[in-house]
């Protein structure tokens, strides 16, 4: 019986298998940011421990940073919120104390940790990658075993270079055939979550396969793997192919010369064997996937743009009926209403799900030559990193957004989790390209609808959700 990609990555990093079923797994790369690391560094300090291997680590501030150009230019000491300032300062101090490489806030390479990692070649195929952030699953798009961990585990990896793990089960989600026009990786991700449910992938590593996945760019694969956690799976994976190798080659921290050849050979084997057996298999037809919009307070509460908000009679159990009633109440929606009748107040294009150059281009293509609807209070475009920002500006995308009445910001997590000043007011409704529509996620009382960048841009222009395929601008 053959091995899955996950089996191969697991075996290549297995340090010790223990009788009780747990294993010691070697960690190649740990990404650190300001929110989930301070207590881990404090733990090291209290125990008098040093990092096991400095070369495993790289840090970058992202979650809690201001996205306002003026505030950023004034430097950390001028940051208005004192609590955020201490947290950002603590990351700098900890990295200096423990000699952890850190990309500082004023560096062009700064960005959301999951955008920066692949962009710099700090995360590479075949690696085991962890970060105190659940969307670490993003890096699985490179053919790496990547997952989020808690702060105690951050400390554990810092101190030992390893993680105590139990092997997950294997699931394969195959998306057959080609995607329709205007349908993106984000729509695949949401459609899969709609199918599996938010707990459907719990205990599994999910490998995404099939023609539609092969056809995706590496950026699209990142969008998809990013949201594996929203289906409950800690890790999402895509096999290495030409697309992967072309993406990685010449990235700043990628191997070069003779090492590149060695890497290419090693990485080319990173795919599931023909006869590999998966514990669970799910198959979707790409042609059946339409642009998706979430209507509720969990990513599984999703339907296509032509759909309607469910009615209570659709639900089978009491728990489901309660969830639906609570979600509709929170979201301020009527049962059975058409998705296209939902009118957002705010547009957010950004987050580690959709803030790469491709996402910026997809949104700009819809917005170009048009104006944001007068009912939209704010439309934020937040590039994922300083390098994405620079690339977009070279292409003139910033001008397109601003001419339409959108704001062009500095990179960071921003309104994805609203730890900084970018947040919804109570009751405000947002068309967001991020990954979570939980209650309060984008601000206390805020209402989130998850969509692709093109769909968010289309909603910005028309003032309500609309089928992006009727808008032109994509080819």
């Amino acid at each position, binding site marked *: 019986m053959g091995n899955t990609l996950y089996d191969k990555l697991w075996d290549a990093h297995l340090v*010790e298998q223990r009788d009780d079923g747990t294993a010691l797994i*070697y960690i190649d790369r740990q990404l650190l940011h300001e*929110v989930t690391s301070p207590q881990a560094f404090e733990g090291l300090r209290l125990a008098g421990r040093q990092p096991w291997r400095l070369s495993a680590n790289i840090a970058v501030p992202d979650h809690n940073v201001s996205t306002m150009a003026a505030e950023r230019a004034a430097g950390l000491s001028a940051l208005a919120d004192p*609590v955020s300032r*201490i947290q950002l300062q603590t990351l700098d101090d900890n990295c200096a104390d423990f000699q952890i490489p850190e990309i500082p806030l004023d560096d062009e390479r700064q960005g959301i940790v999951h955008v920066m990692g692949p962009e710099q070649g700090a995360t590479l195929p075949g690696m085991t990658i962890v970060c105190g952030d659940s969307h670490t699953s993003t890096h699985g798009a490179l053919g790496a075993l990547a997952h989020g961990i*808690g702060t105690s585990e951050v400390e*554990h990896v810092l101190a030992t270079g390893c993680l105590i793990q139990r092997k997950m089960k294997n699931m394969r989600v195959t998306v057959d055939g080609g995607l329709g026009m205007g349908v993106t990786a984000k729509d695949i991700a949401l459609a899969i979550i709609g199918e599996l449910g938010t707990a459907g992938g719990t205990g599994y590593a999910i490998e995404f396969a099939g023609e539609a996945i092969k056809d995706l760019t590496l950026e699209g694969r990142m969008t998809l793997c990013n949201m594996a956690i929203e289906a409950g799976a800690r890790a999402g994976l895509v096999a290495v192919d030409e697309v992967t190798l072309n993406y990685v080659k010449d990235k700043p921290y990628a191997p070069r010369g003779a090492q590149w050849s060695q890497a290419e050979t090693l990485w080319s084997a990173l795919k599931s064997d023909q006869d590999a057996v998966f514990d669970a298999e799910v198959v979707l037809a790409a042609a059946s996937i339409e642009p998706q919009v979430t209507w509720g307070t969990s990513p599984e509460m999703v339907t296509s743009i032509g759909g309607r908000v469910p009615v209570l009679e659709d639900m089978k159990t009491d*728990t489901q009926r309660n969830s639906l009633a609570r979600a509709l109440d929170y979201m301020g929606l009527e049962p059975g209403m058409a998705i296209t009748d939902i009118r957002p107040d705010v547009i957010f294009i950004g987050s580690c799900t959709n803030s790469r150059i491709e996402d910026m281009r997809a949104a700009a293509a819809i917005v170009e030559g048009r104006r944001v609807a007068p009912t939209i209070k704010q439309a934020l475009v937040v590039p994922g990193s300083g390098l994405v920002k620079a690339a977009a500006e070279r292409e003139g995308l910033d001008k397109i957004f601003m001419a339409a009445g959108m704001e062009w910001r500095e990179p960071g997590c921003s309104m994805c989790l609203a*730890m900084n000043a970018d947040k919804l007011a109570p009751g405000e409704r947002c068309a967001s390209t991020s990954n979570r529509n939980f209650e309060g996620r984008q601000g206390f009382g805020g209402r989130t609808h998850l969509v692709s960048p093109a769909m968010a841009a289309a909603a910005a222009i028309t003032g309500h959700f609309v089928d992006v395929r009727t808008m032109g601008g994509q080819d």
Partner: protein
Amino acid sequence: MQAFTVHSGLVAPMDRANVDTDLIIPKQFLKSIKRSGFGPNLFDDLRYLDEGQPDQDNSGRPINNDFPLNAPRYNGASILLARENFGCGSSREHAPWALVDYGFRCVIAPSFADIFRSNCFKNGLLPIELSTEQVSELFDLMYASEGFSLTVDLHQQCVRRPGAQDMPFEVDSFRRDCLLNGLDDIGITLKSSEAIRAFEEQHRQRAPWVFELLEV
């Protein structure tokens, strides 16, 4: 870490599925660089009617009287009864820190999200999975009798109820040992230092680029 052996305590409800870690502890409290002090803001969006801020005095805030944890009958609860997929979403360990800081020692639910579950074990908080039916039964009993308490015995791996059969549960043996003895797993892993070094040697041959310092 605080050891967990046998614990008896008052049971309180969190009666909805897919309770995410944003709901357990909203993001504004993640700005703290400490591990403690999150208890007053556990379920902040549900407990209070206004939006909480870090380091705020909570005594003057408007209370949500519809939220069960605010009811006097659940005062001092240390066992939380919950529904499917508890702890989904963000990996923030602030969620178990907040639950522990509030006074919870144990959460009982039909299922937990993976990262949350492992975060619980690291903080002396025991996540117990029972069947959906068993959890529903406990909810009914709890609602029916004020002061409803349970005893959780990690040695015997069972939940004890007054006057009814024990409910056995499964738990990862490694995690169980760590909890029973209050062990720090970093110390345990470092006992394998030699094995880790030996692994690193062959791994370095296979993938030397992994070992190069990322100079910024």
